[in-house]
């Protein structure tokens, strides 16, 4: 009994000390995983970007918070040549790099830093191209930047010119992505001189709103407000990422006040979180789409009327209820409603099994047997692919279509689903990278992507002409019209059954203010405050 009292007294003491010690404004974010590193360019995971590019770095252009629109960042302004091949950026003056325990900058940000940040990814013979063993510039390459970018040139200390091999309207949006974060060339030179290049990925220095303090692997990342931040010091003094991989535990920590913000709640916990008087739950439609892609190269799925009939047999509402548990919205277009150029005038193929049955008969399809591929993993655009496949199986059985559900290990799934002679329709989805419609329409449905990320293996000349033209046009209104038309063609041809866009929830303490949800799925803490 005495021991129990002692234990309780110790715990009470610790709690009192904890509350007494909370003097500086510290915001604790219970992040869902560990970063792969702190140099964002070699990585692709959102968890890594949340811990690196967002708090620590800036880019030439930035996404306007809460939107996928681009605004000036480290570049104050830019000009595009009439042929669309040259982008000239005027750089912001007086931007300071962070001063840390391990580096004190001697100069402000300038054109050398921009050239360094891109050339290390572009040039295979650059001394920083392979600065640690096996490094790959996955996003830079994935966005086709090596083919697109001819050179990055310093015009003077405050001017940089990007020369392209072909016009590319989404170029500016690409430069707002995490891989385009601007590193310090001076810090890199110091590390190179010290023979410690690998520290670029472990002890980061950037121009961003927070500076790196310490990382205890798989446990805690600590940041402090960057005193000399060009956009002004942050309202909070310290930012702490408490790495908490399990969603139920994140929920408990949030409720217990051990963290102030916790992402990715379990859908089943939302009611409990919303009912908590100390918490607020923000929500926003995610910049994603979950779909069922038919193989348009294989009969009878090569006929649009067959694909349309199958689409009409799917009861999307029951999928939203059972799979998304309310955290989703029916999809009718291949791009999400939060993206510019979304065509709301498009009419979805409504749920009508009787009409679907007749359409199949009219198309001469009888006793159809098909496979539906169910992903083995949970993704934001599809929380439970197996369940979704079962519901579609049940829907299709009502119009006389027999479905066999198949699944593979995730890596195999991604590989096999790309094959042109693939048997069956594939459940998959996409989360946007840069907020540009091209990032959905060309990447997922373009002719170049057949046999790759175009899982429907669908190449339609009308659609392709619209999307390719939109790539070369810099006028946004004109691009919008082209993408709207492309969505009409998509709906007419129905290469996919568009299933849902997920809704992203963000529970946090009511003490937190100024948090803005990012449609691109990132987590930003600049401008966020916490009541004492």
């Amino acid at each position, binding site marked *: 009994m005495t021991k129990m009292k002692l234990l309780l007294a110790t715990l009470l003491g610790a709690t009192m000390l904890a509350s007494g010690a909370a003097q500086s404004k510290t915001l604790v974010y219970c992040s869902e995983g560990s970063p792969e590193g702190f140099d964002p360019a070699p990585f692709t995971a959102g968890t890594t970007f949340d811990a690196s590019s967002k708090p620590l770095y800036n880019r030439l252009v930035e996404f306007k918070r809460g939107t996928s629109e681009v605004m000036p960042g480290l570049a104050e302004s830019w000009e595009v040549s009439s042929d669309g091949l040259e982008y000239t950026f005027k750089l912001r003056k007086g931007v300071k790099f962070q001063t840390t325990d391990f580096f004190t900058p001697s100069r402000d940000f300038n054109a050398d830093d921009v050239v360094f940040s891109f050339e290390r990814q572009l040039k295979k013979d650059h001394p920083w191209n392979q600065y640690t063993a096996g490094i790959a510039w996955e996003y830079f390459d994935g966005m086709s930047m090596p083919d697109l970018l001819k050179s990055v040139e310093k015009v003077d200390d405050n001017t940089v010119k990007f020369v392209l091999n072909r016009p590319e309207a989404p170029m500016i949006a690409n430069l707002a992505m995490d891989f385009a974060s601007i590193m310090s060339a001076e810090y890199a030179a110091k590390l190179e001189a010290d023979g410690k290049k690998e520290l670029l990925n472990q002890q980061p220095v950037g121009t961003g709103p927070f500076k790196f303090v310490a990382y*205890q692997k798989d*446990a805690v990342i*600590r940041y402090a407000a960057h005193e000399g931040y060009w956009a002004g010091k942050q309202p909070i003094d310290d930012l702490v990422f408490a790495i908490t*991989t399990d969603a139920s535990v994140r929920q*408990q920590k949030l409720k217990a006040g051990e963290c102030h913000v916790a992402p990715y709640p379990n859908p089943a916990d939302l009611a409990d979180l919303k009912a908590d008087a100390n918490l607020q739950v923000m929500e926003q439609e995610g910049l994603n789409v979950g779909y069922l892609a038919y193989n348009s190269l294989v009969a009878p799925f090569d006929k649009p009327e067959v694909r349309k009939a199958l689409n009409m047999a799917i009861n999307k509402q029951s999928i939203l209820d059972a799979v998304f548990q309310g955290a989703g919205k029916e999809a009718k277009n291949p791009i999400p409603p939060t993206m510019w150029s979304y065509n709301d005038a498009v009419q979805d193929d409504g749920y009508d099994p009787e009409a679907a049955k007749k359409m199949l008969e009219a198309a001469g399809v009888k006793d159809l047997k098909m496979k539906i591929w169910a992903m083995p993993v949970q993704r934001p655009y599809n929380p439970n692919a197996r369940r979704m496949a079962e519901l579609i199986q049940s829907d299709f059985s009502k119009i006389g279509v027999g479905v066999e559900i198949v699944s593979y290990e995730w890596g195999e799934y*991604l590989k096999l689903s790309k094959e042109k002679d693939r048997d069956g329709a594939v459940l998959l989805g996409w989360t946007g990278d840069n907020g540009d419609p091209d990032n959905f329409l060309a990447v997922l449905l373009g002719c170049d992507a057949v046999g790759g990320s175009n899982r429907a293996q669908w190449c339609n000349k009308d659609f392709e002409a619209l999307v390719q033209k939109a790539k070369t046009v810099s006028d946004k209104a004109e691009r919008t019209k082209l993408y709207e038309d492309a969505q009409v063609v998509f709906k007419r041809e129905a290469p996919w059954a568009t299933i849902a866009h997920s809704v992203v929830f963000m529970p946090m303490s009511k003490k937190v203010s100024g948090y803005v949800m990012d449609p691109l799925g990132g987590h930003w803490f600049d401008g966020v405050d916490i009541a004492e």
Partner: protein
Amino acid sequence: MFAFLLRRIGLIIPTFIGVTIAAFAFVRVLPGDPVLLMAGERGVTPERHAALMKQFGFDRPIYEQYFDYFFSALQGDLGSSLVTKKPVWDEFFTLFPATLELSICAIIFAVFIGVPAGIYAATRRGSWPDQTIMGTALVGYSMPIFWWGLLLIILFSGILGWTPVSGRISLLYFFKPVTGFMLIDSLLSGQKGAFSSAVSHLILPTIVLGTIPLAVVARQTRSAMLEVLSEDYVRTARAKGMSPMRVVGVHALRNAMIPVITTIGLQVGVLLAGAILTETIFSWPGIGKWMVDSIFRRDYPSVQGGLLMIAVIVMTVNLIVDLLYGLVNPRIRHVR
């Protein structure tokens, strides 16, 4: 004793070679590869896939990759993680103290409660305390760790607010790790309240990880004690008027401890397996969680290096147990 030691060490060599083969093969028989998983939905062209596999050295003949791994491992080089690009050896030893600290606490918890509970149950065979202890042990053994952990968190951290939810120490304390053992480092830091915070963070994970070993130890102690208590020499000791406490505590316990020590040794493997789940629930930055992440990412060097290190640790602990066994029971070390 020296010959016994040599014989035991001799057995470790083929086991070590077997483990390197198993660890190397295990991660490669899993479908998918690191490049495909890294690319995700975005995908990767066959040319780029081949280029990356070549860059990682996975295009070489499989035997060449194995021998490279084997001889490098002998020299203490386990390669670098494909994900973090850091040496696997460094990553392992950064995280291992957390797992070791938790495992030691869990085994102490299991032994200090399990052994007395087993003895008590044995000396009162068939009574309600015996049935209660054994029933509880069975429940403890059958309990899914994940469910048990969440249940304790919801009760003690959520509802009662007695313990922290997860982590190793309150985020208010910040000091550079010296030993990697939070209990020691918190003392060394000199920060007021740091040690008690570290202790409070250890309570729930220790209980969760220690529950299964506790149940096993209690049941094993009971059955071993029952066997020894029915021996002639125990009856003789009782007949000579020795106090029950001395009969059980001195004469019976020493012999009953032999199988119990073996059981405790075998629990090391169970602890490391349990650590994977316990660490995930309690956000405990140890090797269990690291291994799971590495497997999901097909991080070949981390998985094969981590598995090898864990196997070496289990083998070493079992060797120590064998030697302890020899010390406790002289007949064992004299067997030819």
